[in-house]
C-alpha cells in the first residue's frame, strides 16, 4: 500500500498539486494501476485538498476511468459508426464468446477485461478492436483466440 501511495505521490509531483491538474493526475493513476482504488482517491483528495465527492464526480463522468479493477489484458471493441456498418456487433459477439465475459466485465481471474469504445481512430479498417496495444482489423474467432492464448 505504501509503495502504491509513493507511486501516486510521484504522479502528483509531476503535475503539481493544483486542482486543475486533477484529471491529468487521475489519467496517470489509471494508467499505472489500470483502475482507481478507493484509498488512492482518498489520498489524492487529501493531497490536492479537494472533496472526495468532487473526484468521484469526475471519475464517473469520464469514460476512461474505472472504479473497479480491470484485467491484466484489456480488449476494446470499437462500436463507432464506421465499424457499426461493417459488423462491429458480430465482432463483439465473437470476442465475448472467446473471453467468456460480457462487455464491461472482467474475468474472474482478472486476466481479461472486455469493453466497448466509441471510436479507436482506425475507422478505415472496421470493424476493429484493440487488444492491449495491438489493433486487430476484423479478426476471426480463431484470430481472437490466438491473441487471447498468447496473453500471460
Amino acid at each position, binding site marked *: 500500500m505504501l509503495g502504491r501511495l509513493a507511486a501516486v505521490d510521484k504522479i502528483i509531483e509531476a503535475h503539481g498539486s493544483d486542482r486543475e491538474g486533477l484529471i491529468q493526475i487521475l489519467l496517470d493513476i489509471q494508467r499505472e494501476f489500470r483502475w482507481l482504488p478507493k484509498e488512492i482517491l482518498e489520498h489524492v483528495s487529501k493531497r490536492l485538498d479537494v472533496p472526495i465527492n468532487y473526484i468521484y464526480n469526475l471519475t464517473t463522468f469520464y469514460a476512461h476511468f474505472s472504479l473497479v479493477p480491470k484485467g491484466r489484458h484489456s480488449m476494446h471493441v470499437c462500436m463507432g*459508426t464506421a465499424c457499426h456498418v461493417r459488423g462491429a456487433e458480430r465482432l463483439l459477439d465473437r470476442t465475448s464468446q472467446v473471453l467468456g465475459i460480457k462487455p464491461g466485465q472482467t474475468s474472474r481471474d482478472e486476466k481479461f477485461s472486455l469493453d466497448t469504445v466509441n471510436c479507436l481512430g482506425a*475507422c478505415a479498417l*472496421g470493424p476493429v478492436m484493440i487488444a492491449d496495444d495491438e489493433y486487430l482489423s476484423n479478426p476471426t474467432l480463431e484470430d481472437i483466440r490466438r491473441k487471447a492464448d498468447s496473453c500471460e
Partner: protein
Amino acid sequence: MSEIIKLSSPSDFESLREKIIKGRDPNRTAVAVCSGPGCLAYASGKVFKRFEEALSAAGLEGEVTLAQTGCHGFCERGPSVVILPDEICYLRVSPEDVNEIVETTLKNGAVVERLLYKGEDGLPIQKESDIPFYKYQQKVVFGDNKRIDPRSIEDYIARGGYTALVKAITTMTPEAVIAEVKDSGLRGRGGGGFPAGAKWEATAKPPADTRYVIVNADEGDPGAYMDRGILEGNPHSVIEGLMIGGYAIGANEGYIYVRQEYPLAIDNVLYALDVLRELGLLGENILGTGFSFDIIVHKGAGAFVSGESSALMSAIEGRVGEPRPKYIRTSISGLRGKPSCLNNVETWANVPLIINKGANWFKSIGTEGSKGTKIFSLVGNVKNTGLVEVPMGMTLRQIIFDIGGGIRDDKEFKAVQTGGPSGGVIPEEMLDLHVDYDELYSAGSMMGSGGMIVMDKDTCMVNVAKYFLEFLSDESCGKCVPCRDGIDQLLEVLRRMTAGTARPDDLDLIEDISVMMKECALCGLGQSAPNPVLSSIKYFKDEYVAHINDKSCPGGVCKALIAYTIDVEKCIGCGKCMKVCPVNAISGDKKKPHKVNNALCVKCDSCYQECPSKVQAVTKIRQADVITAFATSEEAANE
C-alpha cells in the same frame, strides 16, 4: 536536432533554414513507411524494423533516408510505403517484402510490380499521385505527411515550416493577420463551420490581461480520424497555426486538448514542443520580437460532450466537461474566465498556408461560401477507405465512386452519413450534391468534422438512427431535461420500431419530440440529436413505414423482424453456412440444398455472410412469415 543553437533573431532562423535546405539533396532517396493507425494494425512497425535491418545490411544507411511517417491516406491498402523522390507507392507491404524492395528498387532502380496498385485495366500504377484514390484529391493540408518525419523539425522547416510564423510576427501587425484570415473565408473544420477570422477578432477585442488560444483535438465523432492523421503526421503544422493565432489574438498561452486514446499524437506533439523550446521558437521573446508564447497539452479522459467549446474549457480547468449556456461567449469569457479562441486541429493547420500563400490563393479553392479543402474520413462500406482531402464543392459521387472506388463487394449504394451524431444521411438521388457547408446543411445534414460513412443496401436506416441515439444517450451529460429525456424518448420509439411493436402514430411523436429538443436543449449535442432520425425519415420514410406497418426490415438488420432461410433453387450444398453456424441450426447433405431450423437460429448473420457471393442462397425473410416459409421450402425440398 543534431546540435541545438538557440535562435534569437529572425535572421538566425533564416540561416538555420538555409543551412537545412542547402544540406539536402532533393534527389536523395527516401523511404516513408506509414505508421498511422491503419498501417500499424497491418504490422507496419515490423516493416519499418525490417527496412532498418535491410538498409544496414546493404550498406545503404548513408544514402537512403528512412522515416516512420503519419498516415498517407490509403489506409485500406496499408501498410503503405512510398519511395521518394519518384513517389513509387507500394501497398500492402509485408515484412517479407522488404528485402526485395531494397534489392530491386533501392539498389537497382527498378520497381517491384506485384506491390503496386493495379488499375481497372489490370495494369500496375507506379506513381502515388496517378492512383485513382489520390489522383482526384487536392492535398494542401495533408499532403506533406509522407515527406515529413513527425519527429524532425528539419523536415518541417525544409518544407517551408515556421516561415509563416516568422512572417506574421516580423512583418505583420496582429490586426493584419486577423484581416488576412477573415479575408480568406476560412471556416471552422470541427463542427459548425463558424468563420475563423470573425472568432479571432471577437476574442482579440474585449479588454483583458490574458487570453487563450486552444486546439480542439478531442475528435469525438465516431468514424472520423482526420485530426489524428494531422497531429500524428504533421504536428508542427498545427502548432505553427496556433502560434500565429496566439500572436494575432494577443494570447501568450495555448492549449492542445487531445483525447488520451491518441498516444502517438500526444507523444509527437510533446516531442515537437520540447524541440521548439530548445530552439527558442517557443517561450519568452521569440526570435527577439517581443512575442512570448508557450503551449500546454491537456489529455481528454473520454467524453464526447467535452468536445463542445465551453465544456472543453471546463475540462482543461480540471472539472467535469459539461457545457454551459451560450449567452456568455467563450470569446469573451472562456478558459478561466478569459477571452478564449477554440478551433479545430484542421482549422489551425490551414492558418500557416493562408499566411504564406495569401487569402487570395485560399479563396481560389472551393465554393462561394466554403473556401479551401476539407479532409474526410471516407469509411464504411466503400472500397477504398482512408483519409481524403478534396476541394470544397466536389460532388459526393466523385468522392465515393472516383476516389472511393464505389461500394464494397459491388453491392448497391444506399446512403452516406456525414456530420456524425449531429448530422444526417444523404440518399442516392443526391449523390451529385456539391459538398460544402451550406449544401450539406440544406440537405438536412452537416459537414461536421469530416466523417463520411458510406452505407450499402444491407444497412437498415432505422437501425442506424437508433445507433446514433444510443450513442447520444450514453454521451449526453444530462444537465438539461430536453436533451436527457428527449433522447431517451426518441430512443424508446425507435426501439419499438426495430422490435416490431411500433404504434401507428410513432412518426408524429418523433416529430414532436424533435421540435422540442431543437428549441430547448442547452448545447449542440441536444439541439442536433434529432438530426440523424429526422434526415433518415426525410429520405427513407418507406423504411420506417415498413417497420411500423409491415413489421419488416428492408435492410435485413433488425433481428426481431427477420428470419433466415435458404433458397433451395440457389443452394449448391457447399456446407459453408453449416460450418459457421454457432448453434448448429443448419442441416443438409453435401451438394444437396441445406436448410435452417428457425427454432434454433439466433440470427447471428454468419451464414448470410459466408454463403458465396455468386450463390447468395441464404435469404432473409419476415419473421412473421417464418412458419409458412419453412413449410414451403420443406415442401419444395420434398418434391
